[in-house]
């Protein structure tokens, strides 16, 4: 049984601000039924630009419900400028802490708030900018930017922590190599920033540490890489896409990043693209190694 704080149990048993605000100024929706939790956040501003009303609907466990409820209480009366500075760590602190494995519930709150604010500012309803933001975890649909943000806010250092905070790596576990690479890059960047601050002259120490496997995909010569990717696409991806009248084009390969573009029938459908993203990511990781990252090119 989880050891929830009294405040978590209070917000679970007596959730505040449940529902949907009428004619909201901003709406944020994150998560999915398939992933086990989801949150819809709506808010309305008063004439001074402060959050006058905010409501939530959550599908999820006790701590997901409590995190959402806490978030609405925290941001009521804030300007969007102030609200945009609220992090998952603030939500967890407000609740008197969350079990480590439940921190992703607080991250879901932060992301819903971000999405709602972005929706107000841009009118955009899509949750995240998918271009140039590689999908790292195909099981829970977690993108690189979300992992980087969680690492930076919460000062995460291990793959297990990243899983607890973002769910990435929590199901099949294939993306753990990719998460480790992101962590190494972030750690190196932090170290480099510290070094630069101390002695602004040099910084090659910031280079990512060498790959764990000696002759990994990313160390192959470029021509071999292209051949390997094309082979994997031909065998594992194109036949499935062809069923829906689609195809995929390889644009570029650099390091362990593979840039592709979807063509044909489903190229413009966001939902279909998510599935395709997952399909390509899985096929390429099967063939080339678990640190392979697929990036979809913009139109």
């Amino acid at each position, binding site marked *: 049984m989880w050891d929830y704080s009294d405040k978590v149990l209070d917000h679970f048993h007596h*959730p505040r601000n449940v529902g949907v605000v009428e004619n909201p100024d901003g709406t944020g929706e994150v998560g999915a*039924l398939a992933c086990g939790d989801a949150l819809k956040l709506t808010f309305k501003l008063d004439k001074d630009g402060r959050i006058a009303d905010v409501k939530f609907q959550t*599908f999820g466990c006790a701590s997901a419900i409590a995190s959402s409820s806490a978030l609405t209480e925290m941001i009521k009366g804030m300007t969007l400028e102030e609200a945009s500075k609220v992090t998952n760590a603030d939500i967890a602190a407000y609740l008197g802490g969350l079990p480590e494995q439940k921190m992703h519930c607080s991250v879901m709150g932060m992301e819903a708030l971000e999405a709602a604010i972005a929706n107000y500012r841009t009118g955009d309803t899509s949750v995240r900018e998918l271009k140039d933001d590689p999908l790292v975890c195909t099981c829970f649909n977690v993108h690189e930017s979300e992992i980087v943000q969680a690492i930076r806010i919460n000062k995460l250092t291990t793959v297990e922590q990243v899983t607890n905070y973002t769910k990435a790596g929590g199901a099949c576990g294939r993306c753990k190599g990719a998460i480790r690479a992101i962590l190494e890059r972030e750690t190196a960047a932090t170290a480099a920033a510290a070094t630069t601050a101390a002695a602004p002259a040099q910084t090659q120490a910031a280079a990512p540490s060498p790959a764990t496997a000696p002759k990994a995909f990313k160390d192959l010569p470029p021509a071999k890489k292209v051949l390997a990717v094309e082979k994997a696409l031909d065998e594992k991806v194109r036949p499935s896409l062809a069923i829906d009248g689609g195809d995929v084009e390889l644009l570029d390969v650099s390091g362990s990043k593979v840039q592709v573009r979807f063509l044909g029938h489903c190229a413009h459908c966001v939902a279909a693209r998510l599935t395709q993203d997952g399909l390509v990511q899985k096929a390429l990781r099967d063939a080339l190694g678990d640190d392979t990252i697929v990036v979809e090119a913009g139109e």
Partner: protein
Amino acid sequence: MSEEARGASRADTKLHYLDNNATTRPAPEVVEAMMPFFTEKWGNASSMYEFGGQVHRDMEEARAKVAALLKCDPGEIVFTSCGSESDNQAIFGTVEALGPSTVVITTKVEHPAVIQPCKALEERGHRVIWVGVHGDGTLDEAQYAAALATPGPKLVTMMWANNETGVLFPIAECARLAKAAGAVFHTDATQAVGKVAGVDMAATPADMLSFSGHKIHAPKGIGVLFIRRGTPVRPFLLGGHQEKSRRAGTENVPYIVGLGKACELAAAELRDGTLDRIAALRDRLEAGLLRIPETVVNGNREMRLANTLNISFPYIEGEAMLFHLADAGICASSGSACTSGSLDPSHVLKAMDVPFTSLHGSLRFSLSRYSTDADVDAVLEAMPGIVRTLRDLSPFGR
């Protein structure tokens, strides 16, 4: 919650324990039978003098009771510390005896005590064939037959009854097919012993069978591995001649005696209509819960343990339901991701391709001889309100 608050809520509410596939209440008769072995009869069963010899006879009497329940020879019963130990011993011990080319055939819905050893063998280079199940949780027999056609030495390890859904596999038939294919056959019968009349080693040509005491009203810390005479299996725990050198370690006599008593009670229950009474309670619970809109039962409703109900409430999540149930004094469990340490929902429901709308909203109620109409009434009274509350909160509700 503070300790004080927890204590208070426990005292205020009557406990409705409906999680008997997790563990069961030790029967008072069992506890009573065990007590002398803590206070007076504490000798070592392996000693030469009468003070130990009497204890040895009590232990062998218990072994005979276990054998009577399984309908096997007492010499084929090995006492272990738990069901997981029995599974590990059976799987690793057989593979070691059969050699490095052994192929392991198992299913996708086993208990972790079988899945993890099989995965460990896979990592060591063994071929492991994971047989799937149909949407109702029953065995894909065609896949199983195909797996048995694999050449070379083979171990089959397959559960008798699923701990999450209660769905039964046709173990007698599966064991016959395995023997015909020259395979060694092990079954994890932890959820079946004492709950299914057909667990009968005289009629089932299985080579090995595991089960655990605490699922049949004996205490935690005692398990059994039935090993049919002549089965190639290497001992796991070395260091003594106990259990005919099949499992070293001073015999845990109080628990063995307790298990003997529990098996005697279970054997009587298989004959006296208790299972029918439990099934009737379960069916009333099921029918009542199915009145809640969109509720679905997971698993085949015929080929199923009498005591188990696995049921999904779409659009809401299991852990949240369990917390509300706990407030009403009801203990149950869920296949949702959030209730375990993992983020992944039940591997059993996933193997059954349960739709994702219900995957995270499953509950398991499991009954025992101590379950009552009041327990069922408590759930039927609490559940509609809980579902309404959580669906009102959910963005997917109605």
